[in-house]
C-alpha cells in the first residue's frame, strides 16, 4: 500500500508542476485533472473513500469542466500561446521559486521536529461523515448553502452582457424626427 501512495503522490506532484509551467491553457487544465485524480487515489489510501469520490465527481467533474467550458468560450487560441511563452522566461522564476523554497524549508523543519507518528489506516465511512454533518456542523451546512446561492446569483449577474441603455426616443424605430 505504501508503494501506491508514493507512486500516486509522485504523479500528483509531477502533474502539478506541469500545470504550473505549461503554456497552452487546455493542456494545463488536463494536467490539473490528472493531478486531481492522483490526489483522489491518495485520499482512498488514507481511508477517506467518500471524499475521494467527491473529489472526482465535484472537483474534477464539475469545477474543472466549468473551467474547460469557459476556456473554450474565451477562445484563446494560438495568439495566447505565443503570449504565454513570451511572458514566461527563466528570469521570472527566480523570485517566486526562492520564496517557495524558503517556505518549504520552514515547513520541512517543522515537520521533522515532530516525533514520527505512524498513521494507522482508519477507514472512515460516509455514514460517520453524514452523522457529523447533520449534528455538529449543521449551521455550517446552511451557510455553505448560502454561499452557493450567492455564488450562483453573482455569477449570473457578472456574466451578463451589459446592454447600452438608450433613451426611448433615441432607439431606432422610435424616431420622433
Amino acid at each position, binding site marked *: 500500500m505504501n508503494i501506491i501512495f508514493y507512486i500516486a503522490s509522485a504523479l500528483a506532484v509531477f502533474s502539478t508542476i506541469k500545470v504550473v509551467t505549461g503554456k497552452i491553457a487546455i493542456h494545463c487544465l488536463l494536467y490539473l485533472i490528472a493531478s486531481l485524480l492522483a490526489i483522489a487515489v491518495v485520499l482512498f489510501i488514507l481511508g477517506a473513500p467518500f471524499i475521494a469520490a467527491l473529489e472526482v465527481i465535484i472537483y474534477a467533474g464539475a469545477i474543472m469542466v466549468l473551467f474547460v467550458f469557459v476556456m473554450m468560450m474565451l477562445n484563446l487560441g494560438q495568439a495566447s500561446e505565443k503570449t504565454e511563452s513570451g511572458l514566461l522566461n527563466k528570469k521570472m522564476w527566480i*523570485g*517566486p521559486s526562492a*520564496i*517557495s523554497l*524558503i*517556505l518549504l524549508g*520552514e515547513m520541512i*523543519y*517543522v515537520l521533522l521536529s515532530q516525533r514520527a507518528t505512524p498513521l494507522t489506516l482508519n477507514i472512515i465511512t460516509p455514514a460517520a461523515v453524514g452523522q457529523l454533518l447533520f449534528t455538529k456542523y449543521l449551521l455550517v451546512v446552511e451557510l455553505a448553502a448560502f454561499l452557493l446561492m450567492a455564488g450562483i446569483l453573482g455569477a449570473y449577474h457578472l456574466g451578463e452582457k451589459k446592454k447600452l441603455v438608450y433613451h426611448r426616443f433615441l432607439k431606432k424605430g422610435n424616431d420622433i424626427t
Partner: protein
Amino acid sequence: MGSMKEFLWLIVALPFAGSLILVIAGKKLPRLACAFVGVGSVSLSAIVTLLVGISFLRGNPGGTPYVESIWQWMNVDGLSPDIAFHLDAVSLAFIFVVTFVGALIHLYSAQFMWKDEGFARFFIYMNLFVGFMLTLVLADNMLLLYLGWEGVGLCSFLLIGFWYGDPANGYAARKAFIVTRVGDFAMTIGLFVLFINFHTLNIQAILTAAPTTWAVGSGIALTTALLLLGGALGKSAQLPLQTWLPDAMAGPSPVSALIHSATMVTAGVYLIARTHVLFELAPVAQTTVAIIGAITLLVAGLAALNQHDIKRVLAYSTISQIGYMFLALGVGAWSAAIFHFMIHAFFKALLFLGAGVVIWSLDEEHNMFKMGGLWKKLPVTFWTFLIGAASLSALPLITAGFYSKDKILWLSYASDKGSVWLWLAGLAGAFLTALYAFRMVLLTFFGDVKKEPSQRPGLMMTIPLIVLSILSIIGGFIELPGDMGHFTMFSDFIEKTLPATLVNISGHYTELLFQLISGLVAVAGIGTAYVFYYNKAFPAAEPQRNAVQNFFYKGWDFDLLYDTLIVRPVVFLAQMDKNDVIDRFYNGLASLALWFNKLLSATQNGMVRRYAIVLAIGAIITLTIILYL
C-alpha cells in the same frame, strides 16, 4: 478764551477721527460725503489750531510752553512716557503750517482725485498722515515723536504707492521706506543712548539735563547728535539719503505737495530744532549739519537743472531748499530755518499743486518739453505758478522767498558759526535755483502750444492756488531784515523757545551789500533762463545731454553707487546663503515626507501579482516569527 487751548488734543484727534470714519464707512458713503469728511476734518483742525494759537499767545508774553497730558502710555522699568502734547512757539508754527496748508491741499485733491476709484482710500491715508504729522510735531517725549515719525513714514509709503497697479509705483514706495528706514535706525540708537543717559525720554527734561551732564564737545554728545542727525537726513532727504525723493514723485500731485514738500520732509528740520541743545553741545555735529546742507543744495540744484519731468524738478528743488534749512540750523540760525520752512511750505505746495493742474489738464503729461504756451490756456494756474517760482527764486523785495532765503544767506556769513564758504555755496545755490525755476516756467508756459489742455481746473483747485500765492507774497512781511525796518515779529516769536543767533558781523550797510549781491544773483539767474529757454524751439522731446549733464540728470548717480556698494553685495550674500544648514533641515523634512509618500503609494499600484508576492513574503515572515521567536 483762555481755556480754548485745552482743545489742543482736538487738533490731533480730528484727522484721526476723519480717517477712522472713512475706514469704517468709506465704501458705503457717496463720493461727496467722503470728500466732506476728508476735507472737513483737516479744515476743522486748522480752525481749532487758529483758536488754540490765539488763546496760547494771549496773556502769555514769556512764551511758557503749554503741556497737555492725555493719558499715561506705559510705565515700564523707569520708562513712563505719556501721550502728551507740548505746545510752544516752534510747534505752533509747525501745526499752523501743517493744518492750514494741509486743509488747502485736501480741498484741491477733492477735485483732483474725483475720478479716481480709490477716492475714499486716498482721504483715509491723507488724514492719517496729517494726524501722525501733528503727533510728531506736538509730541512731548521722544517716544511719541518716534511714533509720529514712523507713522508719517508709513503714510508716505502708502501714498507714494497709491496707484499700486503699476509695479514701478510700488518700487518707488519701497525705496522711500527702506532709505528712510536707514535713517530711522540711526535715530532709534540715538533714542537708546538718550534713555540710558537720562532715564527719561521727555524732551524738555533731556534738554534741561543735557548741559549739566555732558560737556561741550564731549564724545557722547557728538555721538547722540550724529545719530539723531542720521534720522533727520533720512526723513528730509539730504545727502546721503536723498535718493528716495525724486522717485517718490510716482504718487499723485497732492501727495507730493503735502508730504514731500511742505510737511514730512521738514520733520528732520523739526527734530534738529527741537533737540538744539544737543547740537549746541556738539559743535562738530552742528558744523556737519551745515556742511551737509551746503553740499546738498548744490548737488540737488545741479540735478534739477537737467530734468525734463516737471515733478522731478520740483523734487530736487525741495531737496535743495531743505539743504538751505539745514544750512541755517548748522550755523545756529534757528528762527531763520523755521521761517524758511514756513515760506517754503507755501510756495512749494503752490508749485506742486500748479504742476498738478498742468499734468491733470494735459492728461498725465509730465515732460516739460512736450508742453508749451499754456499761459493763455490756463491763466490762473500760470499767474500763481509764476508767483511761486518767483518766490522760489527769491526775487527781491516782492516775494516772501526773498526775505527768508536772504536771512539764511546773511546769517551763514554773519553768524559766529558761519563762514565765507557756506555763504558762497548758498549764493551759487541761489543762482541755480533761479535758473532752474524759470527754466521750468518758460518751458511749461511759454512757447508754442504743443498739447491742448483737455480740462480746466475748477474752483476747488484754483482757490488753494490763489490763497497760497497770496501767502507766498505777503508771508515774508512778518520778518523784515535789519536794514529794512527791522520788523522781527516772527523771530521774536520763535526765540521764545529757540535761542537767538549770535551774530559776529553786524552793521546795516554790510547787510545791505549782501542783500544786493543775492538780489543780483537771483535776477541774473532769471535772465540766463530767459536767454536760453524763452521761445526756443527744442526739436526733441528730451534735451540732448552730454556726459556731464547726464550725470546730473541721474541725480549724480547715487542710485548706481548704492546699487554697487550695498545692494549687490547683500543680494550676493543672500544667494550664497540660500541653502544653509537651517534651510537644509527644513527642506530635508519636506523631502522625507515626500519620500514616504512615494514609498507608500507604490504599495497601491494595482498590480495583483505584486500583492500576491507581498502576501507570500508576509507569510514567510510570520511563520519565521512564530517558529523561532
